[in-house]
């Protein structure tokens, strides 16, 4: 009797686990199926074409891809140094009495829904960018800044966790050779925690590239490639969030699906790379 229960239980969990794989395959299939028309119409040119003109039935993904890449890049450039600084402060410098409140507030920041970052960006950052850099304020730069603030708490928290895994005895060994706090941070802690830190950055990158609500408010959804960061722009998720309701032709609809497919594949690749770094970190740790 006990054996039967065990078998049922084992099979039930197995089914649930396979269900997740199935779900993934299902989503992928649906995206692919709906993208077919656009894939057939534009082929590979879809990702090279810089015109997105629904009235002419002409769809190119390049502006959205460009916007995703640039806004994410801006966010990373702004967030990485700050995240490392916060993590170093929390793991090595902050007094025990300060550590907990600061850590908790960072984790609270990470819990803020992204739509709130978007609203805050629209009402607070857009005017600042407009007054400081000119333009309308709704821009690539604003999106990059809001994104960087959004991913910062997560990055700082995971980087701190990675740094905290450095064994005390390793740090003490460096101090015992006459190292200063700075020597120990730069020569021991950061190299030791490197794979974990890089993994967390890549996860943050994945979040930034797929982020929708925070940037929809401040980016403008303009399909135009411009080197001027104060110009409005778009990204794949922003285009998807804005345009499904108005997709009035089959090709338009299908092109949006292809955009989504591109985003899915890119996110997939990013997560895989992050996974690779985390696995490596585990191996190093053993």
């Amino acid at each position, binding site marked *: 009797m006990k054996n039967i229960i065990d078998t049922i239980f084992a099979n039930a969990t197995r089914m649930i686990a396979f269900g997740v794989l199935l779900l993934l395959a299902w989503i992928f299939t649906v995206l692919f199926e709906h993208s077919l028309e656009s894939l057939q119409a534009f082929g590979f040119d879809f990702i090279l074409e810089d015109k997105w003109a629904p009235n002419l039935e002409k769809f190119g993904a390049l502006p959205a891809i460009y916007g995703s890449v640039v806004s994410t890049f801006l966010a990373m450039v702004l967030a990485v140094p700050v995240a490392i600084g916060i993590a170093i402060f929390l793991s090595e410098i902050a007094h*025990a009495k300060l550590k907990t409140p600061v850590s908790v507030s960072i984790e609270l920041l990470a819990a803020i829904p992204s739509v709130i970052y978007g609203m805050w960006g629209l009402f607070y950052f857009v005017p600042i960018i407009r007054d400081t850099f000119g333009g309308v304020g709704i821009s690539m730069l604003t999106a990059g800044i809001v994104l960087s603030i959004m991913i910062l708490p997560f990055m700082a928290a995971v980087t701190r966790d990675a740094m905290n895994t450095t064994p005390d005895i390793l740090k003490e060994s460096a101090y015992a050779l006459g190292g200063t706090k700075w020597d120990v941070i730069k020569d021991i802690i950061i190299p030791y925690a490197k794979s974990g830190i890089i993994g967390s950055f890549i996860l943050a990158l994945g979040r930034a590239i797929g982020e929708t609500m925070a940037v929809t408010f401040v980016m403008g959804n303009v399909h135009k490639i411009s080197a001027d960061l104060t110009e409005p722009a778009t990204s794949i998720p922003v285009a998807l969030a804005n345009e499904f309701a108005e997709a009035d032709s089959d090709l338009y609809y299908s092109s949006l699906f292809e955009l989504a497919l591109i985003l899915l594949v890119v996110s997939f690749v990013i997560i895989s790379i992050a996974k690779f770094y985390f696995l490596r970190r585990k191996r190093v740790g053993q």
Partner: protein
Amino acid sequence: MATIVEIAEEKALAVKDFEFTYAGADAPSVKKLNMPIAKNSITALIGPSGCGKTTLLRSFNRMHDLYPGNKYEGEIIFKDRNILGVKEDLIQLRIQIGMIFQKPTAFPMSIFDNVAYGLRLQGFKNKTELKDRVEKALHDAAIWNEVKDRLGHDANGLSGGQQQRLCIARAVAVEPEVLLFDEPTSALDPISTAGIEELIVQLRERVSIIIVTHNMQQAARVSDYTGFMYLGELIELGRTEELFVTPREKLTEEYITGKFG
């Protein structure tokens, strides 16, 4: 009162009325301790867990200063000064008094860079000089032949015993006057342990050594003097062969005959 044997040699260190209290603790972990440490000799510290031997050891290079709130009292005299003073330059002190830990602690860098680490911290830049010093240190730690062909390899690829000898090479590279060993073989197999013990004995010619060990046989094998600590106090310090054969204190006798521990 502790029974302390007369030290014939010059003294490397002298502990005077030393007390140590951990942050937040009510009672000191080391109490009113007096102890001479002989120069160019090996002094072993033995005693049951929690007797304060590691706490005392970590006071010699002020390791306790890495964590806030710990309190030293009394004096530890090293080169005519009290190293517990507030003006003590801890970086210089730790260069002069090196330390080897319970587990091998190879840094996440190459074998060469591990050994060169302390020298580079001191600003050594000249490549040939650095190379010479690293090679000498690896010879001193009896590991040169095993690593000479792979100095650029990651130090974490070495075996535990090799890593511990690498750590010893790293510590002797900066030419300290005193070396502190905190249970250096507790994570090693018997063969590696024998290698480390042999090395410690050889190093005595150049440095004064203090070794904390939970292994009485190890203390008997390697040391010239042995101090027995119990509940934060030094009970007896004697020449090793005498202390193990004819202990003067009853507590020492009970401990070394295995009546408690």
